[in-house]
């Protein structure tokens, strides 16, 4: 690598335009929001510069803390479900025969390239009262019903009532899992792929079962990748805006929606800014933990 001093002109030409763009059109806007977060809301909803911590205090009031807590909790549940579903997929792909590997990877990656809005919207058609899932359930219900009446049993099934699957909290969790699943599979796959297989084989040869090997060898060795995946999914889910809007009910508001509301109809930008920075701080803490773990595990040889 060249030292920038040896070739100042070229270094400047390459670095300055992009840095300037990010400085002016990304960092400066964030700085403005940061300054706003200490400001006050004027009588007409304008933002007055001030120095007050009121917005942060307000963010920790019970009603807002409730939304914050619910966001964290929802993101955590979505992350765990993602892990339960995605870990076997990552494991399967990592140990799949070479000729299927790329195809399976592609299958995991493709949905994450289709539009986020459309992917979320697609679930409405699946979950709504007259959606595919209820349709399937009704069909199964009908089949069971005929079977029972054939067997001469009384009408124990009753009539089919479509389930209220959409516009509630579980729909939000499903939507989050759906969007985030590839983000979990890819980093875990990447670490499993690099893992020294002979260690797992040794464990199996020495009489440990599959589960034991998984718990004491595979998962500890793949831990950095697993943590990466979990944190990525958590950050992504925590900051979501679209999923609760499209799939959630009146009760499913998460912190992203609260921020949008303060910048939109409520027109309280200082408060929205404070919330926005709370979300950023949480994100940074998580990234910091990940960096710590990554740097610690780097020095360890297996």
């Amino acid at each position, binding site marked *: *690598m060249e030292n920038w001093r040896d070739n100042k002109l070229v270094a400047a030409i390459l670095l300055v335009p*992009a840095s300037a763009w990010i400085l002016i059109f990304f960092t400066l806007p964030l700085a*403005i929001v940061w300054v706003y977060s200490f400001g006050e809301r004027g009588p007409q909803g304008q933002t007055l510069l001030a120095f007050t911590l009121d917005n942060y205090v307000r963010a920790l009031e019970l009603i807002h803390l409730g939304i914050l807590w619910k966001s964290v909790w929802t993101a955590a549940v979505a992350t765990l479900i993602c892990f339960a579903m995605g870990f076997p997929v990552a494991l*399967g792909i990592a140990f799949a025969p070479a000729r299927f590997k790329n195809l399976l990877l592609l299958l995991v990656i493709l949905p994450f390239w289709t*539009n986020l809005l459309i992917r979320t*919207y697609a679930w409405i058609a699946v979950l709504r009262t007259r959606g595919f899932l209820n349709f399937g359930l009704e069909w199964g219900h009908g089949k069971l019903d005929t079977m029972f009446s054939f067997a001469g049993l009384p009408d124990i099934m009753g009539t089919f009532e479509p389930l209220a699957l959409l516009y509630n909290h579980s729909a939000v969790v499903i939507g989050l899992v759906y969007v985030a699943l590839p983000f979990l599979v890819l980093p875990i796959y990447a670490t499993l792929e690099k893992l020294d297989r002979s260690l797992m084989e040794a464990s199996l040869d020495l009489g440990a079962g599959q589960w034991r090997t998984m718990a004491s060898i595979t998962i500890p060795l793949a831990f950095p990748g697993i943590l990466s995946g979990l944190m990525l999914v958590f950050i992504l889910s925590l900051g979501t805006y679209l999923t609760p809007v499209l799939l959630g009910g009146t009760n499913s508001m998460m912190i992203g929606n609260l*921020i949008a509301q303060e910048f939109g109809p409520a027109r309280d930008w200082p408060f929205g800014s404070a919330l926005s920075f709370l979300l950023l701080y949480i994100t940074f803490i998580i990234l910091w933990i990940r960096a710590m773990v990554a740097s610690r595990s780097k020095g360890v040889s297996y």
Partner: protein
Amino acid sequence: MRKVRPTPLEYTRKKWFQLVLLLNFIFLYFPIVALIAFSFNNSRRNITWKGFTLKYYVKAFHNESLFDAFLNSLIVAGISTAVSTVLGAMLGLALYRFKFPAKNAFDGWIHLPIIIPEICMGVAMLAFFSRLNITLGLFTITVSHIAFSLPFVAVVVRARMAGFDHSLEEAARDLGANQWQTFKDVTLPYMMPGIVAGALLALTLSLDDFVITFFTSGPGSTTLPIKIFSMVRFSVTPEVNAASTVLIAITLILTVVTMTIQARSGKNKGLPL
């Protein structure tokens, strides 16, 4: 011939494991496939199959505001891709090539737009433009799209350059080429697959973005995702499905092209990020 039993680590050859994979892929694909399939369905109620039709595509095409939104999306994505590819490629090359003070911190800073929640960036752009009294419109959308696409291009280009043999540049210099000639005839051709992949990534990101666009668009500057969003909030219609399918088709084609390029250039083992 006796069938070989799967060894303990050949998970994909176990029946129950195949079932888990299958369920995951059904989960991943059913909603999208259903959406695409039902955009061809000859029924407004859209729950049972009533025969194949293209009429909702024709309808969507003749829906003027939808078509305008599509054009807006193309304009924004075109400009955003051009600018972010040039700036991002330069940045990626610089990060590969130069050592400079506080490089780690710089690196972290440059990658922030990839990591922070979209909603935070969206409201920040809104606050910024309104502070400067800039009217929201295609211009503000494009500027924001460049800001979040640029780091992605830099990442892709830098990853490509990681496999570059520096001695080629030295050889060119030794043989009398100046810096610019060396760049143009040696470095740039090697960078090219990375640049193309980065550009396609930027194009996809811009076409797909909803949240940041939502906060930086004005009344007359609706992009396709924003338009689809406003239609979706009223009801699920086959017309929306048709418009969505068009957008999916475009991004899928772009993705497959990107992946083919990356697979050919060989350095990135199929992972797009």
